[in-house]
């Protein structure tokens, strides 16, 4: 589990992991509605993380715990 921060850019969600200074675009997010948000997220570099599905944050950026599924060095 790692802390990540999700922010919004003009191109969509951006993933940022402070611990390892990894910034990347989020290419897909499993759930992206106000009621259910998160699930599996895929990154531009091919990595994948899992965020416990939850109510969408009121505003971004938003720090959240995420589990690594795959990739990212």
């Amino acid at each position: 589990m790692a802390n990540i921060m999700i922010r919004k850019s003009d191109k969509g969600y951006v993933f940022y992991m402070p611990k390892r200074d990894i910034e990347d675009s989020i290419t897909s997010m499993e759930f992206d509605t106000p009621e259910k948000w998160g699930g599996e997220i895929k990154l531009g570099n091919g990595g994948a993380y899992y965020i416990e599905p939850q109510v969408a944050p009121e505003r971004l950026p938003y720090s959240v715990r995420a589990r690594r599924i795959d990739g990212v060095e």
Partner: protein
Amino acid sequence: MAALTREETEALIQEVLEVYPEKAKKDRAKHLMVNDKELESSKKCITSNRKSLPGVMTMRGCAYAGSKGVLWGPIKDVISISHGPIGCGQYSRAGRRNYYIGTSGVDSFCEMNFTSDFQEKDIVFGGDKKLAKLINEIEGLFPLNKGISIQSECPVGLIGDDIEAVAKKAAKELNKPVVPVRCEGFRGVSQSLGHHIANDSVRDWIITNRDGHPFEKTPYDVAILGDYNVGGDAWASRILLEEMGLRVVAQWSGDGTLAEMENTPFVKLNLLHCYRSMNYISRYMEEKYNIPWIEYNFFGPSKIKESLRKIASFFDDKIKEGAERVIEKYTPSMEAVIAKYKPRLQGKKVMLYVGGLRPRHTVGAYEDLGMEVVGAGYEFAHNDDYDRTIKEMGDATLIYDDVTGYEFEEFVKAIKPDLIGSGIKEKYVFHKMGVPFRQLHSWDYSGPYHGYDGFAVFARDMDMTLNNPCWNMMQTPWQEKPAKSLLKDPLLKAA
């Protein structure tokens, strides 16, 4: 047009890598690439922020350098103690030329070296008592300091001193922020982690200090982040922002004060110049205080124009008009600068190797002068920096990460740039090779280079270096072809 074609550049990389043993070769190959503007992400082509290879010459510094030297050092009314043996602080003292207004030793302390000067007994018995004593001494001798930061050097982390406890106690006694910073040099692979640690310490000990306090806001409040006022850079930037109607609340951290930093959460927009060293705190403020941040670039009129408009787009028409007014006001003087220097610099090739920002930020300024950056690299950049660099640089140019002394020399020999911009460690090597060189860390005792005023200085300095007549005198006399006048010399003829 790059200096070499794509194939030639690739061949050059292969040739240079040839001397390394197999394993080292494999490792270094990942840090060198030929630029391809089409790429969206640098990830597959270049590896960065990795431990330097043992046995090669790296130009990197340590985490302590990143924290004390870059972020904490320039805050003028905070005394930063170099906690540990004396060398780390003394050999880096005042080297970055962070200008400030104030009286050294009275209310400003950037140039001084405060250290706990560890001796053997401190290593054996711990240095906490000494640190506490030192803090008291500082308070007695320099009562106008607004806060103290403790910058740990390697031994402090190794012996496990509890500087946090000392700091907490001292902060209570003095009623001032006393910030322990765990930036021991062995952490991380370069100074980059030091920036991060320093940002985190600001987050934990400084930034929330004035939450809930009254502050007279205006809708035009901004903060300059990541400008260290090297040679007066932040001043040259600040006047432009003020001229367009913004109010600059804080400068992080060149010529900055603790109070400014504490007031930063009240601003409307954070302006980030050095992304590498201060994105962390910007992100934090964005999340916690809902302050957006943008990167801007004040090198060269083209980029300044772009940046001023980008900054203005966050504000109302008054500021937008202000930006246009500023651009218009400086355009004639910038045109004059370009008219003067461009003919002397046109078509010249530059290779850069700097810290974490300038290799990409100065590209625009060189282009304004008709020059071309044919190779660029960073000491401690991360992949997101290279993502940004790919777009700035020309196709087929050479990009090198944490370049080794050997590689850099070989690249220069093959590419033959007209000018190199890098740091003091590289300067004399290239001078001796007969290549014009400017220090792009400290601006070679010159500056500012930011802003419109800075560009005039920048252009003059590049011309002064590049077209200096001394470069024609590099040939040793005995290798020189006999000059004509000598042959005609009647005395010689007679002999």
